[in-house]
Protein backbone atom coordinates (compact mmCIF):
# COMPACT_ATOMS: atom_id res chain seq x y z
CA UNK A 1 0.00 0.00 0.00
CA UNK A 2 1.69 3.19 -1.15
CA UNK A 3 1.17 6.62 0.34
CA UNK A 4 -0.51 7.83 -2.84
CA UNK A 5 -3.23 5.19 -2.76
CA UNK A 6 -3.78 5.73 0.96
CA UNK A 7 -4.35 9.43 0.47
CA UNK A 8 -6.58 8.93 -2.57
CA UNK A 9 -8.65 6.41 -0.62
CA UNK A 10 -8.87 8.84 2.26
CA UNK A 11 -10.00 11.57 -0.09
CA UNK A 12 -12.57 9.27 -1.63
CA UNK A 13 -13.88 8.15 1.73
CA UNK A 14 -13.40 11.47 3.46
CA UNK A 15 -17.05 12.42 3.11
CA UNK A 16 -18.44 9.25 4.63
CA UNK A 17 -16.27 8.22 7.54
CA UNK A 18 -18.96 6.53 9.57
CA UNK A 19 -18.69 5.61 13.25
CA UNK A 20 -19.18 1.95 12.30
CA UNK A 21 -15.99 2.01 10.26
CA UNK A 22 -14.01 3.63 13.04
CA UNK A 23 -15.19 0.96 15.48
CA UNK A 24 -14.36 -1.84 13.03
CA UNK A 25 -10.92 -0.37 12.45
CA UNK A 26 -10.25 -0.02 16.17
CA UNK A 27 -11.38 -3.59 16.89
CA UNK A 28 -9.16 -4.92 14.11
CA UNK A 29 -6.22 -2.98 15.49
CA UNK A 30 -6.82 -4.29 19.02
CA UNK A 31 -7.07 -7.86 17.67
CA UNK A 32 -3.81 -7.37 15.80
CA UNK A 33 -2.09 -6.05 18.91
CA UNK A 34 -3.30 -9.10 20.86
CA UNK A 35 -1.81 -11.28 18.12
CA UNK A 36 1.65 -9.79 18.58
CA UNK A 37 1.47 -9.66 22.40
CA UNK A 38 3.29 -12.99 22.83
CA UNK A 39 6.08 -11.74 20.58
CA UNK A 40 6.34 -8.43 22.44
CA UNK A 41 6.48 -10.16 25.82
CA UNK A 42 9.06 -12.61 24.54
CA UNK A 43 11.35 -9.73 23.50
CA UNK A 44 10.58 -7.75 26.65
CA UNK A 45 11.45 -10.63 28.98
CA UNK A 46 14.60 -11.46 27.04
CA UNK A 47 15.81 -7.96 28.01
CA UNK A 48 15.12 -8.43 31.72
CA UNK A 49 17.32 -9.84 34.47
CA UNK A 50 16.24 -12.91 36.43
CA UNK A 51 14.98 -10.66 39.26
CA UNK A 52 12.76 -8.62 36.93
CA UNK A 53 10.93 -11.53 35.32
CA UNK A 54 8.18 -11.27 37.92
CA UNK A 55 7.59 -7.66 36.90
CA UNK A 56 5.00 -8.16 34.17
CA UNK A 57 5.26 -4.68 32.66
CA UNK A 58 5.92 -4.73 28.93
CA UNK A 59 8.70 -2.15 28.95
CA UNK A 60 11.62 -3.47 31.05
CA UNK A 61 12.64 -1.11 33.85
CA UNK A 62 16.33 -1.57 33.06
CA UNK A 63 16.74 -3.31 29.70
CA UNK A 64 19.93 -5.31 29.34
CA UNK A 65 21.45 -7.46 26.62
CA UNK A 66 23.18 -9.71 29.19
CA UNK A 67 20.92 -12.67 28.41
CA UNK A 68 21.75 -12.46 24.73
CA UNK A 69 25.47 -12.24 25.48
CA UNK A 70 25.26 -15.28 27.75
CA UNK A 71 23.24 -17.36 25.30
CA UNK A 72 25.30 -16.42 22.25
CA UNK A 73 28.71 -16.73 23.95
CA UNK A 74 27.77 -20.28 24.88
CA UNK A 75 28.32 -21.03 21.16
CA UNK A 76 25.65 -23.67 20.75
CA UNK A 77 23.01 -21.29 19.44
CA UNK A 78 25.36 -20.04 16.76
CA UNK A 79 25.98 -23.62 15.68
CA UNK A 80 22.26 -24.45 15.62
CA UNK A 81 21.57 -21.23 13.76
CA UNK A 82 24.15 -22.14 11.11
CA UNK A 83 22.80 -25.71 10.89
CA UNK A 84 19.26 -24.48 10.33
CA UNK A 85 20.36 -21.88 7.80
CA UNK A 86 22.41 -24.37 5.84
CA UNK A 87 19.74 -27.07 5.87
CA UNK A 88 16.92 -24.70 4.94
CA UNK A 89 18.95 -23.07 2.15
CA UNK A 90 20.11 -26.35 0.65
CA UNK A 91 16.60 -27.82 0.67
CA UNK A 92 15.21 -24.60 -0.84
CA UNK A 93 17.74 -24.62 -3.69
CA UNK A 94 16.98 -28.27 -4.37
CA UNK A 95 13.23 -27.65 -4.42
CA UNK A 96 13.48 -24.61 -6.67
CA UNK A 97 15.59 -26.63 -9.10
CA UNK A 98 13.83 -29.99 -9.14
CA UNK A 99 10.22 -28.92 -8.56
CA UNK A 100 10.54 -26.42 -11.40
CA UNK A 101 12.23 -28.91 -13.69
CA UNK A 102 9.56 -31.54 -13.10
CA UNK A 103 6.73 -29.01 -13.22
CA UNK A 104 8.08 -27.66 -16.52
CA UNK A 105 8.48 -31.14 -18.01
CA UNK A 106 4.94 -32.10 -17.07
CA UNK A 107 3.53 -28.82 -18.37
CA UNK A 108 5.43 -28.43 -21.62
CA UNK A 109 6.51 -31.84 -22.93
CA UNK A 110 4.27 -34.38 -24.59
CA UNK A 111 5.14 -38.01 -24.03
CA UNK A 112 3.41 -41.21 -23.08
CA UNK A 113 3.21 -41.62 -19.33
CA UNK A 114 3.13 -37.92 -18.59
CA UNK A 115 -0.26 -38.03 -16.93
CA UNK A 116 0.72 -41.12 -14.94
CA UNK A 117 3.89 -39.45 -13.62
CA UNK A 118 1.86 -36.38 -12.68
CA UNK A 119 -0.76 -38.39 -10.82
CA UNK A 120 1.90 -40.48 -9.08
CA UNK A 121 3.68 -37.36 -7.81
CA UNK A 122 0.40 -35.71 -6.82
CA UNK A 123 -0.68 -38.82 -4.92
CA UNK A 124 2.29 -38.41 -2.54
CA UNK A 125 0.47 -35.37 -1.12
CA UNK A 126 -1.84 -37.87 0.56
CA UNK A 127 1.01 -39.56 2.44
CA UNK A 128 1.68 -37.88 5.77
CA UNK A 129 5.30 -37.38 6.82
CA UNK A 130 4.55 -39.16 10.09
CA UNK A 131 3.93 -42.37 8.20
CA UNK A 132 7.28 -42.18 6.44
CA UNK A 133 9.52 -41.31 9.38
CA UNK A 134 9.84 -44.90 10.58
CA UNK A 135 11.00 -46.23 7.18
CA UNK A 136 13.18 -43.12 6.75
CA UNK A 137 14.74 -43.77 10.13
CA UNK A 138 15.42 -47.38 9.16
CA UNK A 139 16.91 -46.24 5.85
CA UNK A 140 19.05 -43.61 7.57
CA UNK A 141 20.42 -45.99 10.14
CA UNK A 142 21.30 -48.57 7.47
CA UNK A 143 23.00 -45.99 5.26
CA UNK A 144 24.69 -44.07 8.08
CA UNK A 145 22.63 -40.90 7.58
CA UNK A 146 21.63 -40.52 11.24
CA UNK A 147 23.21 -37.37 12.67
CA UNK A 148 24.21 -35.84 9.36
CA UNK A 149 23.06 -32.83 7.38
CA UNK A 150 22.03 -35.10 4.54
CA UNK A 151 19.94 -37.12 6.99
CA UNK A 152 18.02 -33.98 8.01
CA UNK A 153 17.60 -32.79 4.43
CA UNK A 154 16.94 -35.81 2.25
CA UNK A 155 13.18 -36.26 2.85
CA UNK A 156 12.39 -32.73 1.66
CA UNK A 157 14.60 -32.38 -1.39
CA UNK A 158 11.54 -32.38 -3.67
CA UNK A 159 7.88 -31.87 -2.87
CA UNK A 160 4.68 -32.67 -4.73
CA UNK A 161 3.24 -29.33 -3.62
CA UNK A 162 6.12 -27.41 -5.21
CA UNK A 163 5.94 -29.46 -8.39
CA UNK A 164 2.21 -28.86 -8.69
CA UNK A 165 2.62 -25.13 -8.05
CA UNK A 166 5.34 -24.79 -10.69
CA UNK A 167 3.43 -26.88 -13.23
CA UNK A 168 0.44 -24.54 -12.87
CA UNK A 169 2.63 -21.54 -13.60
CA UNK A 170 4.60 -23.08 -16.46
CA UNK A 171 1.32 -23.87 -18.19
CA UNK A 172 0.81 -20.12 -18.46
CA UNK A 173 4.09 -19.62 -20.34
CA UNK A 174 3.31 -19.19 -24.09
CA UNK A 175 4.74 -21.95 -26.29
CA UNK A 176 5.82 -19.39 -28.92
CA UNK A 177 8.72 -18.24 -26.76
CA UNK A 178 9.96 -21.80 -26.31
CA UNK A 179 9.57 -22.61 -30.02
CA UNK A 180 11.48 -19.48 -30.97
CA UNK A 181 14.32 -20.57 -28.70
CA UNK A 182 14.26 -24.02 -30.27
CA UNK A 183 14.55 -22.51 -33.74
CA UNK A 184 17.55 -20.59 -32.47
CA UNK A 185 19.14 -23.95 -31.68
CA UNK A 186 19.11 -23.79 -27.88
CA UNK A 187 18.97 -27.17 -26.16
CA UNK A 188 15.99 -28.07 -23.98
CA UNK A 189 17.82 -27.58 -20.71
CA UNK A 190 18.93 -24.08 -21.68
CA UNK A 191 15.42 -23.25 -22.88
CA UNK A 192 14.02 -24.21 -19.47
CA UNK A 193 16.71 -22.49 -17.46
CA UNK A 194 17.23 -19.33 -19.52
CA UNK A 195 13.81 -18.73 -21.13
CA UNK A 196 11.07 -20.42 -19.10
CA UNK A 197 12.39 -19.95 -15.54
CA UNK A 198 12.69 -16.12 -15.74
CA UNK A 199 9.01 -16.00 -16.80
CA UNK A 200 7.76 -17.56 -13.56
CA UNK A 201 9.80 -15.66 -10.98
CA UNK A 202 6.76 -14.85 -8.77
CA UNK A 203 6.08 -18.58 -8.45
CA UNK A 204 9.74 -19.30 -7.76
CA UNK A 205 9.85 -16.74 -4.98
CA UNK A 206 6.64 -18.14 -3.48
CA UNK A 207 8.07 -21.65 -3.58
CA UNK A 208 11.40 -20.51 -2.14
CA UNK A 209 9.75 -18.62 0.73
CA UNK A 210 7.50 -21.55 1.62
CA UNK A 211 10.25 -24.12 1.46
CA UNK A 212 12.67 -22.03 3.47
CA UNK A 213 10.14 -21.18 6.17
CA UNK A 214 8.91 -24.77 6.36
CA UNK A 215 12.40 -26.15 6.80
CA UNK A 216 13.58 -23.39 9.11
CA UNK A 217 10.75 -24.17 11.55
CA UNK A 218 10.71 -27.96 10.98
CA UNK A 219 10.77 -29.89 14.24
CA UNK A 220 9.50 -33.46 13.94
CA UNK A 221 11.99 -35.10 11.58
CA UNK A 222 15.10 -33.18 12.79
CA UNK A 223 14.16 -34.22 16.34
CA UNK A 224 14.17 -37.86 15.25
CA UNK A 225 17.22 -37.93 12.99
CA UNK A 226 19.65 -35.90 15.11
CA UNK A 227 21.10 -37.25 18.33
CA UNK A 228 24.21 -35.15 18.89
CA UNK A 229 23.91 -31.52 19.97
CA UNK A 230 26.24 -30.33 17.21
CA UNK A 231 23.76 -31.42 14.55
CA UNK A 232 20.58 -30.01 16.11
CA UNK A 233 18.63 -27.50 14.08
CA UNK A 234 17.54 -24.32 15.84
CA UNK A 235 14.03 -25.52 16.88
CA UNK A 236 15.36 -28.83 18.22
CA UNK A 237 18.29 -27.10 19.93
CA UNK A 238 15.99 -24.50 21.46
CA UNK A 239 13.71 -27.22 22.80
CA UNK A 240 16.61 -29.03 24.50
CA UNK A 241 18.00 -25.71 25.76
CA UNK A 242 14.63 -24.71 27.26
CA UNK A 243 14.27 -28.06 29.06
CA UNK A 244 17.75 -27.66 30.48
CA UNK A 245 17.03 -24.09 31.74
CA UNK A 246 13.98 -25.40 33.67
CA UNK A 247 12.50 -22.23 35.18
CA UNK A 248 14.95 -19.57 33.99
CA UNK A 249 12.31 -17.96 31.82
CA UNK A 250 14.42 -14.96 30.82
CA UNK A 251 16.97 -17.34 29.26
CA UNK A 252 14.28 -19.39 27.53
CA UNK A 253 12.70 -16.21 26.14
CA UNK A 254 16.11 -15.11 24.87
CA UNK A 255 16.52 -18.43 23.07
CA UNK A 256 13.01 -18.19 21.64
CA UNK A 257 13.73 -14.61 20.51
CA UNK A 258 16.93 -15.70 18.80
CA UNK A 259 14.98 -18.36 16.92
CA UNK A 260 12.32 -15.83 15.89
CA UNK A 261 14.38 -12.74 14.98
CA UNK A 262 15.76 -14.07 11.65
CA UNK A 263 12.34 -14.83 10.15
CA UNK A 264 10.93 -11.52 11.38
CA UNK A 265 13.84 -9.64 9.79
CA UNK A 266 13.34 -11.49 6.53
CA UNK A 267 9.64 -10.65 6.70
CA UNK A 268 10.27 -6.94 7.26
CA UNK A 269 12.58 -6.91 4.23
CA UNK A 270 10.41 -9.02 1.93
CA UNK A 271 6.91 -8.40 3.31
CA UNK A 272 5.41 -7.64 -0.08
CA UNK A 273 6.78 -10.81 -1.71
CA UNK A 274 5.91 -13.04 1.21
CA UNK A 275 2.27 -11.97 1.41
CA UNK A 276 1.92 -12.19 -2.36
CA UNK A 277 3.65 -15.57 -2.34
CA UNK A 278 1.30 -16.96 0.29
CA UNK A 279 -1.68 -15.68 -1.71
CA UNK A 280 -0.35 -17.20 -4.94
CA UNK A 281 0.37 -20.56 -3.38
CA UNK A 282 -2.98 -20.62 -1.61
CA UNK A 283 -4.98 -19.79 -4.71
CA UNK A 284 -3.15 -22.10 -7.09
CA UNK A 285 -2.50 -24.87 -4.60
Amino acid at each position, binding site marked *: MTAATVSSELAANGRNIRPGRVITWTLLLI*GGLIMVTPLLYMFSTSLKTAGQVYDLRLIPAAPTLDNYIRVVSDGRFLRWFLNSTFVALAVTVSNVFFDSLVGYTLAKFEFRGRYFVFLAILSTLMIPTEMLVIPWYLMSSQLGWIDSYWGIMFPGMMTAFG*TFLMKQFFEGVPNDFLEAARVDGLNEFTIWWKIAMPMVTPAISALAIFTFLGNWTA*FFWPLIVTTSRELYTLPVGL*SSFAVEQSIQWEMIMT*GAALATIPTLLVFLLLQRYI*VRGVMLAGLKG
Partner: protein
Amino acid sequence: MSSVTGTGPAVEARLWDRFTIRQKRVMWAWAFLAVPIVFYVGIRFYPTFQAFWLSFTNWDLLRPAQFIGIANYQRMFADPQFWQVFRNTFAYLIIGAPVSLVISFVVAYYLDRVRFMHGFIRALYFLPFLTTAAAMAWVWRWFYQPVPIGMINGLLANFGLPSQPFLRSTEQALPAIMVTAIWAGLGFQIIIFIAGLRAIPSTFYEAARIDGLGDWAILRKITLPLLKPTTVFLVVFSSIGFLRIFDQVYNMTTNDPGGPLNSTKPLVLMIYQTAFSSYQMGYAAAQTVVLFTILLVVSLMQLWVLREQK
Protein backbone atom coordinates in the same frame (compact mmCIF):
# COMPACT_ATOMS: atom_id res chain seq x y z
CA MET B 1 24.11 -35.57 -19.91
CA SER B 2 26.90 -35.36 -22.51
CA SER B 3 26.00 -38.65 -24.19
CA VAL B 4 22.46 -37.37 -24.73
CA THR B 5 23.21 -33.88 -25.95
CA GLY B 6 25.74 -35.17 -28.44
CA THR B 7 28.73 -33.17 -27.28
CA GLY B 8 30.62 -36.47 -26.98
CA PRO B 9 32.37 -38.35 -29.83
CA ALA B 10 31.21 -37.86 -33.40
CA VAL B 11 29.60 -41.33 -33.54
CA GLU B 12 27.26 -40.41 -30.74
CA ALA B 13 26.44 -37.13 -32.38
CA ARG B 14 25.38 -38.96 -35.54
CA LEU B 15 23.27 -41.39 -33.54
CA TRP B 16 21.56 -38.49 -31.77
CA ASP B 17 20.87 -36.78 -35.11
CA ARG B 18 19.07 -39.86 -36.37
CA PHE B 19 16.17 -39.29 -33.96
CA THR B 20 13.27 -37.09 -34.96
CA ILE B 21 12.74 -33.82 -33.11
CA ARG B 22 9.76 -35.41 -31.38
CA GLN B 23 11.78 -38.41 -30.20
CA LYS B 24 14.50 -36.13 -28.94
CA ARG B 25 12.02 -34.17 -26.90
CA VAL B 26 10.67 -37.36 -25.33
CA MET B 27 14.21 -38.33 -24.36
CA TRP B 28 14.80 -34.90 -22.87
CA ALA B 29 11.63 -35.26 -20.83
CA TRP B 30 12.70 -38.58 -19.34
CA ALA B 31 16.20 -37.26 -18.73
CA PHE B 32 14.67 -34.38 -16.74
CA LEU B 33 12.49 -36.78 -14.81
CA ALA B 34 15.18 -39.40 -14.07
CA VAL B 35 16.45 -38.09 -10.73
CA PRO B 36 12.99 -37.06 -9.46
CA ILE B 37 11.59 -40.50 -10.31
CA VAL B 38 14.35 -42.17 -8.29
CA PHE B 39 13.57 -39.76 -5.44
CA TYR B 40 9.81 -40.29 -5.44
CA VAL B 41 10.14 -44.06 -5.71
CA GLY B 42 12.90 -44.36 -3.10
CA ILE B 43 11.85 -41.68 -0.58
CA ARG B 44 8.06 -41.63 -0.96
CA PHE B 45 6.54 -44.78 -2.48
CA TYR B 46 8.84 -47.48 -1.17
CA PRO B 47 8.71 -46.13 2.42
CA THR B 48 4.90 -45.96 2.20
CA PHE B 49 4.67 -49.65 1.38
CA GLN B 50 7.31 -50.38 3.98
CA ALA B 51 5.23 -48.60 6.63
CA PHE B 52 2.23 -50.78 5.76
CA TRP B 53 4.42 -53.89 5.88
CA LEU B 54 6.04 -52.92 9.19
CA SER B 55 2.62 -52.42 10.74
CA PHE B 56 2.16 -56.20 10.43
CA THR B 57 5.50 -57.00 12.13
CA ASN B 58 6.95 -56.87 15.60
CA TRP B 59 10.10 -55.01 14.55
CA ASP B 60 11.83 -53.33 17.52
CA LEU B 61 15.26 -52.27 16.10
CA LEU B 62 17.02 -55.15 17.89
CA ARG B 63 15.68 -58.26 16.21
CA PRO B 64 14.74 -58.64 12.54
CA ALA B 65 11.10 -57.91 11.79
CA GLN B 66 8.75 -60.88 12.05
CA PHE B 67 5.31 -61.03 10.48
CA ILE B 68 2.67 -61.12 13.22
CA GLY B 69 -0.50 -60.45 11.21
CA ILE B 70 -2.92 -57.93 12.63
CA ALA B 71 -1.67 -58.29 16.22
CA ASN B 72 -0.51 -54.65 16.34
CA TYR B 73 -3.95 -53.45 15.28
CA GLN B 74 -5.69 -55.71 17.79
CA ARG B 75 -3.42 -54.42 20.52
CA MET B 76 -4.04 -50.80 19.49
CA PHE B 77 -7.81 -51.06 19.37
CA ALA B 78 -7.80 -52.77 22.77
CA ASP B 79 -5.55 -50.10 24.29
CA PRO B 80 -7.48 -47.47 26.30
CA GLN B 81 -4.59 -45.04 25.82
CA PHE B 82 -5.09 -45.24 22.06
CA TRP B 83 -8.75 -44.28 22.38
CA GLN B 84 -7.85 -41.44 24.72
CA VAL B 85 -5.33 -40.22 22.14
CA PHE B 86 -7.88 -40.68 19.37
CA ARG B 87 -10.38 -38.51 21.26
CA ASN B 88 -7.72 -35.87 21.94
CA THR B 89 -6.73 -35.75 18.28
CA PHE B 90 -10.34 -35.17 17.23
CA ALA B 91 -10.80 -32.62 20.01
CA TYR B 92 -7.97 -30.57 18.47
CA LEU B 93 -9.67 -30.91 15.09
CA ILE B 94 -13.30 -30.36 16.03
CA ILE B 95 -12.68 -27.30 18.19
CA GLY B 96 -9.53 -25.93 16.58
CA ALA B 97 -10.50 -25.92 12.91
CA PRO B 98 -13.94 -24.22 13.18
CA VAL B 99 -12.78 -21.66 15.73
CA SER B 100 -9.73 -20.67 13.71
CA LEU B 101 -11.73 -20.53 10.46
CA VAL B 102 -14.49 -18.36 11.89
CA ILE B 103 -12.04 -15.93 13.48
CA SER B 104 -9.89 -15.72 10.37
CA PHE B 105 -12.90 -15.20 8.09
CA VAL B 106 -14.32 -12.41 10.25
CA VAL B 107 -10.94 -10.67 10.44
CA ALA B 108 -10.33 -11.12 6.70
CA TYR B 109 -13.82 -9.89 5.78
CA TYR B 110 -13.43 -6.64 7.68
CA LEU B 111 -9.71 -6.20 7.09
CA ASP B 112 -10.28 -6.43 3.34
CA ARG B 113 -12.46 -3.29 3.50
CA VAL B 114 -10.05 -1.34 5.68
CA ARG B 115 -7.76 0.96 3.75
CA PHE B 116 -6.22 3.04 6.51
CA MET B 117 -3.01 1.30 7.69
CA HIS B 118 -4.17 -1.89 5.97
CA GLY B 119 -0.64 -3.26 5.48
CA PHE B 120 0.33 -2.62 9.09
CA ILE B 121 -2.72 -4.29 10.62
CA ARG B 122 -2.40 -7.22 8.21
CA ALA B 123 1.24 -7.62 9.25
CA LEU B 124 0.23 -7.77 12.94
CA TYR B 125 -2.04 -10.73 12.22
CA PHE B 126 0.45 -12.38 9.89
CA LEU B 127 3.59 -12.18 12.06
CA PRO B 128 2.80 -15.19 14.32
CA PHE B 129 2.66 -17.41 11.22
CA LEU B 130 6.37 -16.74 10.67
CA THR B 131 7.43 -17.89 14.12
CA THR B 132 8.84 -21.27 15.05
CA ALA B 133 6.22 -23.40 16.80
CA ALA B 134 8.89 -24.87 19.10
CA ALA B 135 9.90 -21.36 20.22
CA MET B 136 6.44 -19.90 20.66
CA ALA B 137 5.23 -22.96 22.55
CA TRP B 138 7.66 -21.96 25.29
CA VAL B 139 6.39 -18.36 25.31
CA TRP B 140 2.80 -19.58 25.72
CA ARG B 141 3.89 -22.07 28.31
CA TRP B 142 5.35 -19.17 30.27
CA PHE B 143 2.08 -17.21 29.87
CA TYR B 144 0.18 -20.12 31.42
CA GLN B 145 2.35 -20.37 34.55
CA PRO B 146 0.80 -19.74 37.97
CA VAL B 147 1.25 -16.35 39.63
CA PRO B 148 3.59 -14.56 40.06
CA ILE B 149 5.26 -15.65 36.81
CA GLY B 150 2.34 -16.32 34.47
CA MET B 151 0.98 -13.33 32.60
CA ILE B 152 -2.55 -14.65 32.07
CA ASN B 153 -3.01 -15.53 35.71
CA GLY B 154 -1.58 -12.14 36.64
CA LEU B 155 -4.21 -10.53 34.41
CA LEU B 156 -6.97 -12.63 35.98
CA ALA B 157 -5.79 -11.59 39.44
CA ASN B 158 -5.96 -7.93 38.39
CA PHE B 159 -9.63 -8.38 37.61
CA GLY B 160 -10.15 -10.25 40.89
CA LEU B 161 -10.73 -13.59 39.15
CA PRO B 162 -9.41 -16.87 40.58
CA SER B 163 -6.20 -18.14 39.00
CA GLN B 164 -6.41 -21.11 36.69
CA PRO B 165 -4.17 -24.20 36.52
CA PHE B 166 -4.09 -24.26 32.68
CA LEU B 167 -1.36 -26.73 31.63
CA ARG B 168 -1.49 -28.49 35.00
CA SER B 169 -5.13 -29.44 34.66
CA THR B 170 -6.38 -32.43 32.70
CA GLU B 171 -9.36 -30.38 31.54
CA GLN B 172 -7.73 -27.07 30.65
CA ALA B 173 -4.42 -28.26 29.21
CA LEU B 174 -5.76 -29.33 25.81
CA PRO B 175 -7.68 -26.08 25.11
CA ALA B 176 -4.67 -24.11 26.38
CA ILE B 177 -2.40 -25.83 23.87
CA MET B 178 -5.02 -25.46 21.15
CA VAL B 179 -5.05 -21.68 21.62
CA THR B 180 -1.34 -21.67 20.77
CA ALA B 181 -1.95 -23.65 17.59
CA ILE B 182 -4.90 -21.48 16.53
CA TRP B 183 -2.87 -18.33 17.19
CA ALA B 184 0.02 -19.58 15.06
CA GLY B 185 -2.16 -20.52 12.08
CA LEU B 186 -4.51 -17.54 12.00
CA GLY B 187 -2.30 -15.24 9.92
CA PHE B 188 -2.00 -17.71 7.06
CA GLN B 189 -5.75 -18.31 6.93
CA ILE B 190 -6.50 -14.58 7.00
CA ILE B 191 -4.16 -13.93 4.06
CA ILE B 192 -5.71 -16.75 2.04
CA PHE B 193 -9.23 -15.54 2.82
CA ILE B 194 -8.31 -12.00 1.75
CA ALA B 195 -6.86 -13.38 -1.50
CA GLY B 196 -10.09 -15.34 -2.04
CA LEU B 197 -12.26 -12.28 -1.33
CA ARG B 198 -10.29 -10.19 -3.80
CA ALA B 199 -10.64 -12.85 -6.49
CA ILE B 200 -14.42 -12.34 -6.53
CA PRO B 201 -15.15 -10.04 -9.51
CA SER B 202 -16.51 -6.67 -8.38
CA THR B 203 -19.24 -6.83 -11.05
CA PHE B 204 -21.08 -9.32 -8.83
CA TYR B 205 -21.17 -6.80 -6.01
CA GLU B 206 -22.19 -3.96 -8.30
CA ALA B 207 -25.05 -6.03 -9.70
CA ALA B 208 -26.16 -6.92 -6.17
CA ARG B 209 -26.10 -3.26 -5.11
CA ILE B 210 -28.20 -2.30 -8.12
CA ASP B 211 -30.66 -5.01 -7.06
CA GLY B 212 -30.74 -3.27 -3.68
CA LEU B 213 -29.23 -6.06 -1.56
CA GLY B 214 -27.86 -5.10 1.85
CA ASP B 215 -24.44 -6.03 3.27
CA TRP B 216 -25.77 -9.09 5.03
CA ALA B 217 -27.62 -10.41 1.97
CA ILE B 218 -24.55 -9.83 -0.20
CA LEU B 219 -22.41 -11.77 2.27
CA ARG B 220 -24.84 -14.70 2.29
CA LYS B 221 -25.82 -14.79 -1.37
CA ILE B 222 -22.64 -13.74 -3.13
CA THR B 223 -19.52 -13.67 -0.97
CA LEU B 224 -19.86 -17.00 0.83
CA PRO B 225 -20.94 -19.10 -2.20
CA LEU B 226 -18.22 -17.64 -4.42
CA LEU B 227 -15.65 -18.08 -1.67
CA LYS B 228 -16.40 -21.79 -1.38
CA PRO B 229 -13.22 -23.11 -3.08
CA THR B 230 -11.07 -21.00 -0.74
CA THR B 231 -13.08 -22.09 2.27
CA VAL B 232 -12.89 -25.76 1.36
CA PHE B 233 -9.13 -25.49 0.83
CA LEU B 234 -8.69 -23.85 4.25
CA VAL B 235 -11.01 -26.32 5.99
CA VAL B 236 -8.92 -29.22 4.72
CA PHE B 237 -5.61 -27.44 5.25
CA SER B 238 -6.38 -26.52 8.84
CA SER B 239 -8.05 -29.88 9.59
CA ILE B 240 -4.93 -31.71 8.48
CA GLY B 241 -2.83 -29.30 10.53
CA PHE B 242 -4.82 -29.95 13.71
CA LEU B 243 -4.89 -33.72 13.14
CA ARG B 244 -1.08 -33.67 12.86
CA ILE B 245 -0.44 -31.37 15.82
CA PHE B 246 2.85 -32.20 17.54
CA ASP B 247 5.35 -29.34 17.99
CA GLN B 248 3.20 -27.36 20.42
CA VAL B 249 2.14 -30.34 22.52
CA TYR B 250 5.66 -31.75 22.72
CA ASN B 251 7.18 -28.44 23.81
CA MET B 252 4.43 -27.38 26.22
CA THR B 253 4.42 -30.67 28.12
CA THR B 254 8.09 -31.71 28.17
CA ASN B 255 7.96 -32.86 31.83
CA ASP B 256 5.37 -35.48 30.90
CA PRO B 257 4.87 -35.42 27.12
CA GLY B 258 1.17 -35.44 26.29
CA GLY B 259 0.27 -34.99 29.94
CA PRO B 260 -1.07 -34.41 32.46
CA LEU B 261 -2.31 -38.04 32.37
CA ASN B 262 -2.27 -38.19 28.55
CA SER B 263 -5.00 -35.55 28.47
CA THR B 264 -3.27 -33.56 25.70
CA LYS B 265 -1.56 -36.35 23.79
CA PRO B 266 -2.34 -36.36 20.04
CA LEU B 267 -1.80 -39.32 17.72
CA VAL B 268 1.51 -38.02 16.33
CA LEU B 269 2.99 -37.73 19.81
CA MET B 270 1.89 -41.28 20.60
CA ILE B 271 3.54 -42.43 17.36
CA TYR B 272 6.73 -40.59 18.31
CA GLN B 273 6.85 -42.15 21.76
CA THR B 274 6.01 -45.66 20.58
CA ALA B 275 8.67 -45.49 17.87
CA PHE B 276 11.47 -43.44 19.38
CA SER B 277 11.09 -43.79 23.15
CA SER B 278 10.06 -47.45 23.42
CA TYR B 279 11.32 -48.52 19.96
CA GLN B 280 8.22 -50.58 19.14
CA MET B 281 8.58 -49.76 15.46
CA GLY B 282 5.98 -52.26 14.24
CA TYR B 283 3.35 -51.01 16.67
CA ALA B 284 4.16 -47.39 15.82
CA ALA B 285 3.83 -48.19 12.11
CA ALA B 286 0.32 -49.50 12.75
CA GLN B 287 -0.52 -46.17 14.43
CA THR B 288 0.81 -44.26 11.42
CA VAL B 289 -1.47 -46.33 9.19
CA VAL B 290 -4.42 -45.16 11.29
CA LEU B 291 -3.28 -41.54 10.93
CA PHE B 292 -2.90 -42.04 7.18
CA THR B 293 -6.44 -43.42 6.98
CA ILE B 294 -7.90 -40.47 8.90
CA LEU B 295 -6.09 -37.93 6.70
CA LEU B 296 -7.13 -39.79 3.56
CA VAL B 297 -10.78 -39.66 4.57
CA VAL B 298 -10.52 -35.90 5.23
CA SER B 299 -8.88 -35.31 1.82
CA LEU B 300 -11.44 -37.44 -0.01
CA MET B 301 -14.22 -35.48 1.67
CA GLN B 302 -12.67 -32.33 0.17
CA LEU B 303 -12.79 -33.83 -3.33
CA TRP B 304 -16.39 -34.90 -2.75
CA VAL B 305 -17.48 -31.45 -1.54
CA LEU B 306 -15.80 -29.76 -4.50
CA ARG B 307 -17.48 -32.12 -6.94
CA GLU B 308 -20.92 -31.32 -5.49
CA GLN B 309 -20.35 -27.74 -6.44
CA LYS B 310 -19.90 -28.34 -10.17
